[in-house]
């Protein structure tokens, strides 16, 4: 599942950020992954993954405007940067090339 440059969680987080568009922040990313994969990831895992990927240049962040329901604190909104898109494409291509020719097995595993 994972390429050397991108872990599985990093892939999930990048895909969630892509899906959410302009509204991607730690809370919405976690909810998106939870809804789509039924995986209950810890909040800490999302924060450190986003932080790490920003350091690697895969995502960019900017502070949104503060709101009253957040106690006057701003959201950190994320978008996928070009290196992030490249890394994601490379990781998904690797997965796809490993899946090629395994149609029969994958059909069997889905029935299970």
């Amino acid at each position: 599942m994972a390429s050397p440059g991108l872990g599985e969680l990093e892939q999930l987080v990048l895909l969630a950020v892509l899906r959410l568009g302009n509204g991607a922040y730690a809370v919405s990313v976690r909810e998106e992954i939870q809804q789509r994969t039924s995986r209950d990831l810890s909040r800490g895992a999302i924060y450190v993954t986003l932080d790490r990927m920003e350091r690697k240049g895969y995502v960019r962040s900017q502070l949104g405007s503060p709101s009253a329901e957040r106690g006057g604190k701003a959201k950190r909104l994320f978008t996928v940067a070009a290196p992030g898109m490249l890394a994601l494409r490379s990781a998904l291509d690797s997965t796809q090339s490993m899946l090629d020719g395994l149609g029969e097995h994958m059909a069997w595993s889905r029935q299970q």
Partner: protein
Amino acid sequence: MNDIWTWLVRVIGGVLPAHEYDVVLGDLREESRMLPLGVRSRWIAREALCIALRYHVECYRDADDRRRIVILAGLACGLLWSVPVATHQAMVAADAFVSTTMHAVMTIWQAPHVTSAIAAGLMIGRMPLVASHVDVSRWHVVAVAMVAVVALHGWVNGGIAAGFVWAATWLGDHGRHAVASENGDLTAPSS
């Protein structure tokens, strides 16, 4: 009661990376808005602690960062051990020809545990060996050094020296950040 939890969140916030504190707290407030007031502060404190712990564990994810942290801890412990030993040897040698000046120098060096603690603390805080994104690991090294110094010198002397390790690291850390800010080198703020 709520005030205690609010105060606790502030304390826990101190171990979060400084640039994330407001964002994390805002996110937790947003997520907990449906919770009853009595439970809310406790929930925020618990979640903030889990997130802070995750940031601390993250320091050891990368093998290269891990290696550098271990080297720093090794150097600090080496300094804490070697300075008192070297001082003791020097004192024994100096006893043979004690002069007034030498006596004064020796008096200063009567507390090698403090001297070594200050040296180790300054090194931990100042040494650019550890990458800025794992700066928080310096405080893990401080904890190791404090335990080591108590083990080496006992509760009283060790306790005093442990305080000096902490204070010297704080000074060194501030000095390093001041220099880095002047040079514009600081990529990630200290936690």
